[in-house]
């Protein structure tokens, strides 16, 4: 059990810098999820913590010890890989025991630790089997068992659930969370799946193009996205982003087609500033014409059962229309072709500077 600290960690291949300086502290026992689109550098960052990739500059310390130049085995970490990376010729027991054998633990100690982990993961009936005789979920468990028996300072997970089917993924997600809670080991978890990220994380790191765009709790990332990228990445369907220009004081915002929007409980920036107005689909409510903030022309309806999603255009008159998605109750009576007057729930707007992409206010 330990803290992990990253201080301005950078990575470059030749002249191309792929990680542009990430700084963060992971508390003891915390589960941190790194989420981002593929190629954003999240796996590279994890592999740098693991010691599988060299660090170009900056400093990584685990349990207060700088580990920059240490081999993976000296860092006191355990890693779970996306394709499990089990040793195919070894039994489940030997797979879990291998690291302990190398560490020269006594036979009895190894047997005890493997037994404990196998009981926790319900793997006892399979200890004698080869990985090839196991299902995907069981292999995943063995990979976790292999990490667990080491009793390391930190767990590192590299998209561990990506190879499982949807149902199993939900189940394993819960198990990982419970397991991590019960052993209380500091963990770093990489995924591209935002649902996984939101449900697992104590805190989230949202990464894009080698930059940590926001590091915060899942709820704060959802309700206060720091940048346009985070706003668009977290939440499904994604947040609606409408280009707008701030009007004179008291005049609200002017959309691309000239219509004025004045959402309630919103602090508007100085006049003339170019912004994006962000509203989540679930914060748009159909109302009567008089109370409407904006009007949307519905193009298509998606019925999901619990919810109905209406896709449409805002301000389509000048060819400068923006797409908009509205989330409504499952029984909402909307059809394609309707014009839907919508109110934005008070205080549920997000404003971003159009040039820097940063949140305003």
């Amino acid at each position, binding site marked *: 059990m330990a803290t992990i600290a990253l201080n301005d960690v950078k990575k470059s291949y030749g002249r191309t810098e792929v990680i542009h300086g990430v700084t963060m502290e992971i508390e003891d026992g915390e589960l941190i999820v790194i989420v981002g689109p593929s190629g954003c550098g999240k796996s590279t960052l994890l592999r740098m913590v693991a010691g599988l990739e060299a660090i170009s500059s900056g400093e990584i310390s685990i349990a207060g010890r700088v580990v920059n130049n240490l081999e993976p*085995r000296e860092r006191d970490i355990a890693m779970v890989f996306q394709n499990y990376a089990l*040793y*195919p*010729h070894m039994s489940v027991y030997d797979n879990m025991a291998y690291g302990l054998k*190398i560490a020269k633990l006594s036979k009895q100690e190894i047997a005890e630790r493997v037994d404990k982990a196998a009981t926790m993961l319900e793997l006892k009936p399979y200890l004698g089997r*080869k990985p*090839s005789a196991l299902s995907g979920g069981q292999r995943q468990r063995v990979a976790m068992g292999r990490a667990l028996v080491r009793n390391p300072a930190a767990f590192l997970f590299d998209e561990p659930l990506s190879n499982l089917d949807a149902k199993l993924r939900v189940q394993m997600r819960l198990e990982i969370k419970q397991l991590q809670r019960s052993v209380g080991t500091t963990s770093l978890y990489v995924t591209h799946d935002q649902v996984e990220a939101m449900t697992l994380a104590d805190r989230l790191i949202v990464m894009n193009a080698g930059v940590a765009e926001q590091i915060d709790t899942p709820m704060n990332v959802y309700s206060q996205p720091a940048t346009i990228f985070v706003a668009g990445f977290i939440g499904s369907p994604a947040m609606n982003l409408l280009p707008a220009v701030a009007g004179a004081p008291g005049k609200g915002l002017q959309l691309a087609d000239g219509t004025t929007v004045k959402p309630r409980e919103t602090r508007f920036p100085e006049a003339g500033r170019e912004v994006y107005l962000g509203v989540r689909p679930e914060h748009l409510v159909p109302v009567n014409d008089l109370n409407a903030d904006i009007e949307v022309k519905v193009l298509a309806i998606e019925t999901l059962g619990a919810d109905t999603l209406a896709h449409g255009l805002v301000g389509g008159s000048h060819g400068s229309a923006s797409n908009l998605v509205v989330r409504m109750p499952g029984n909402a009576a909307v059809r394609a072709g309707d014009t839907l007057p919508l109110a934005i729930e008070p205080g549920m707007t997000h404003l971003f500077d159009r040039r820097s992409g940063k949140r305003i206010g």
Partner: protein
Amino acid sequence: MIRTSIASRVIAHFLLIVGIVIVVFPIYYVFVASTHSLMDILRPPLPLWPGNQFLHNYYEAIFGGVAKIGGVGVGRLLWNTTVVAVCVAVGKIGISILSAYAVVFFRFPLRMTFFWLIFITLMLPVEVRILPTYKVMVELHLVDTFGGLILPLIASATATLLFRQFFMTIPPELLEAARVDGAGPARFFLDILLPLSRTNIAALFVILFIYGWTQYLWPLLVTNSNDMNTIVIGLRKMISFADADTQWHLVMVTCIFAILPPILIVVLMQRWFVKGLVESEK
């Protein structure tokens, strides 16, 4: 299941049987001839059934020492050949698996240069470099020794390439998992790579053992004394141009002994490596 009519099955079996007869007959005939006395073999017609000299001929060949090859018994020839074939096979596998390991898993300067150097030796068969090799063996005083018989044959670009191809199919995560588990390069090689390669090793051993067993040109050059001959060379020396001069019954016995070990290796190892294949492909 592919359904076949009786007629096509009969035809297929007929063709297969004809094929087997054609392949097996010469070997059968060698066996038949090895059980007759020299006089019987030389007097036409050739006998088609085994004769009554089996024990006598085999005893003479193994323990008697054949005059033509300097009084050396077949037993000695078999021993020489076994040592050469096993050492060549084991040596080739050992050297090539280690060089493939280096080329695939380590990053060192001129790595690809070394790989291409190994690759290029494929273009230089034994016959092309035979004179310089012979010269080296003479200078090292290795003529008429096992060292001289084995060393020049022991490097193998083909086996290195085979192992390299196999190693490249091993997922990199396996290496990383082993590194996180604390395995150094030697441990990873012994505990993980070697067990995973066992099918390849078995297949290569069969091929290379037979390669070593049937070597002709190099043993012919590098051995002068009769008791360092391999069985193929001994066989050749037993046959002289004049038919009456050749002790055909003993030649045939030697032939049987020359054929038997490769057949045994193939039959025994085949079982083992098919089992290995089934296990790892699941």
